[in-house]
């Protein structure tokens, strides 16, 4: 075996050449997957280093230098740390009391302090964003959020039809505007992000499935666009684990692809939208029912739709029992006619909860019963109402 000494020495040298000077990649919390924690509750900062087996203090210094924040600043203190290879997890706690609903991140670390959230909470959901040439649509949406004032914004993929750096910079700027209003952004990727996958990962980090605890909720974001329209075994296992450790929180789920196909509700060829969840659909639906998930939020079809756990298209009523499997229309990309639901418009969905219980998830349309089934909120509705 002595013949192998030189190759292994060469290997160690090669790894040093690749990894020096020491660099880091911040994996969590990131924009799109923030850590939202109550005072005194721990959270983890996760990062990777360019070399394995680096002492954690050295690695922590490198992450602070590179990303421009101090892990221990203000009321934040390091409680513990663990490492594995080149991955590091540093446990932090901040006991500083929070005035109002949130203390916003100020130093670049996506750590939100959670204060007193109202009993009635509003979340906004959207997918299939506008693209280059329609920047104003996204700007108007953000303006509208200043009126709606949700406690969080959930973005379920196809955020970047244009994978250019220009678009990403613009979109992230709009997300930062939402954050400045005190609205955390929770995002997951869709199929179009695959077109510039490296860019999406650079901006949102490598954890394309993640969980964010927010007040009474656990928002679980999944990535359905591996290969095509599916969950993978390990992702499904991770999903189950998140549901096993809810600690009394209400689980909300977002992913890009609708869970069910249009079925009998399809209109013509459904504009060939396709894209229901193929892998692990049965197991996923079963878990949603077992764990009493009130709502599963998706996009992809560019038209509103709602299904029950049997996969039945529910255009008869909005308040049926069990999990609501919701598809929300496009926020800005081309509209389609996938199902027999007669309305087509750009929009987003407002979800209203009372003490964690889902009260409303549809928007009343003129001339329709209240609550109107299926319908999302047409873009501009609240902006128009806010104008004198």
């Amino acid at each position: 075996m002595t013949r192998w000494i030189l190759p292994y020495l060469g290997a160690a040298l090669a790894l040093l050449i690749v990894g020096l000077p020491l660099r880091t990649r911040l994996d969590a919390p990131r924009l799109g997957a923030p850590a939202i924690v109550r005072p005194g509750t721990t959270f983890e900062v996760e990062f990777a280093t360019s070399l394995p087996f680096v002492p954690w203090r050295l690695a922590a210094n490198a992450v602070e230098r590179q990303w421009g924040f101090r892990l221990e600043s203000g009321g934040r203190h390091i409680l513990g740390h663990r490492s594995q290879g080149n991955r590091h997890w540093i446990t932090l706690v901040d006991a500083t009391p929070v005035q109002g609903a949130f203390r916003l991140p100020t130093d670049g670390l996506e750590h939100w302090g959670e204060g007193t959230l109202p009993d009635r909470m509003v979340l906004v959901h959207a997918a299939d964003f506008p693209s280059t040439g329609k920047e104003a649509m996204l700007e108007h949406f953000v303006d509208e959020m200043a009126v709606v004032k949700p406690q969080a914004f959930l973005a379920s993929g196809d955020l970047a039809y244009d994978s250019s750096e220009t678009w990403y910079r613009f979109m992230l700027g709009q997300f930062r505007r939402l954050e400045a209003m005190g609205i955390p952004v929770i995002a997951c990727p869709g199929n179009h992000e695959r077109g510039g996958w490296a860019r999406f990962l650079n901006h949102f980090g490598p954890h394309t499935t993640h969980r964010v605890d927010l007040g009474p909720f656990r928002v679980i974001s999944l990535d359905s666009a591996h290969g095509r329209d599916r969950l993978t075994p390990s992702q499904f296992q991770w999903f189950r684990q998140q549901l096993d450790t809810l600690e009394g929180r209400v689980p909300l789920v977002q992913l890009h692809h609708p869970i069910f196909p249009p079925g009998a509700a399809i209109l013509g060829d459904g504009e060939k939208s396709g894209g229901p969840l193929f892998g692990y659909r049965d197991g996923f639906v079963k878990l949603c029912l077992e764990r009493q998930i009130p709502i599963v939020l998706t996009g992809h079809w560019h038209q509103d739709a709602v299904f029950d756990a049997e996969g039945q298209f529910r255009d008869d009523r909005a308040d049926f029992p069990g999990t609501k499997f919701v598809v929300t229309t496009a926020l800005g990309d081309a509209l389609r006619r996938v199902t027999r639901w007669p309305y087509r418009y750009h929009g987003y969905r407002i979800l209203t909860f009372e003490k964690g219980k889902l009260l409303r998830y549809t928007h009343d349309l003129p001339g329709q019963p209240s609550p109107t089934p299926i319908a999302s909120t047409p873009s501009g509705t609240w902006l128009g109402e806010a104008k004198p």
Partner: protein
Amino acid sequence: MNAIWLFLYLGCLIQLLTLYRLDLNKPATLLVALPILLLPLMDRLGRHLPWLLGKGLVRLAGLLSLLSALGMARILNLGFWETRHLGLGALCALLGLGLLLVVRSMPRESAGPGLWLWIAAWEFTGLWHPVLPLVGAGLSAFLAAFGRWPEGEPLAPSTRRASPFWIMLSLGLVLPKPWFDFNLEGNWAPVMAVFALAVGAAGLSRLRKGLDRLSNALLLILLALAFVAYPSAWALVWSAAVGLLWGTLWLRLPRPLSLPKLSLGFILGLLLSYALHSNLGIPVLRRLLWWGS
């Protein structure tokens, strides 16, 4: 060196491409694919242009291979591969072409557990970043070109014979399952390392004696079963079994090995596996592909 080409270069490259996708309309794609496209021509080129395999050029190829692997890994380490990037495509092409020339210049096959331990160690580095196994490919090319590659014991020929194309096709179908499963999470890397260790273990005399009793057909059927029954939570055990099965078949391949045949079978298997796993809309496939998970 054939195994280095197949697992540390070709396998790692395709694993990266399943993560980041290739845009067929972009020139960088041609660069990335160039070493693979040239592969069937290498024998002919070697015959007609013998100076290609001269000592000086092979050393230059080994050096370029290492430098381009290091360059690529320095750029990509902790980052993500923008596959339309021409510079990265060029580095990838240089690494592949250099390695190809070195492999072609070394007709003798390395054997023994040391080789597979080396491959396993580099596969494991994929846990830190998926580009790192390519550094292993570049370093192996460099060592081989400068005569520092540790030659293994000559392989004792097996009494049974297996077809290189079909053996590699079957592996190409089975092996990427953990890549598709774990995706951006690095957990596929230890799975690949265990696979490589198991291939090496299959060549150990005591184990080989037992495994030699199994027919090719039975081994292929068991591999097909591993394609269908993939227990995600037990992926390490699964890969050990796949490694033992495939390692037994590897020993039965006719020597000298035909790199174009091996590579073609492997690539076709990987592409077919990718296509199948990306089309779960087909009803029977949906049930079949992740059975066991």
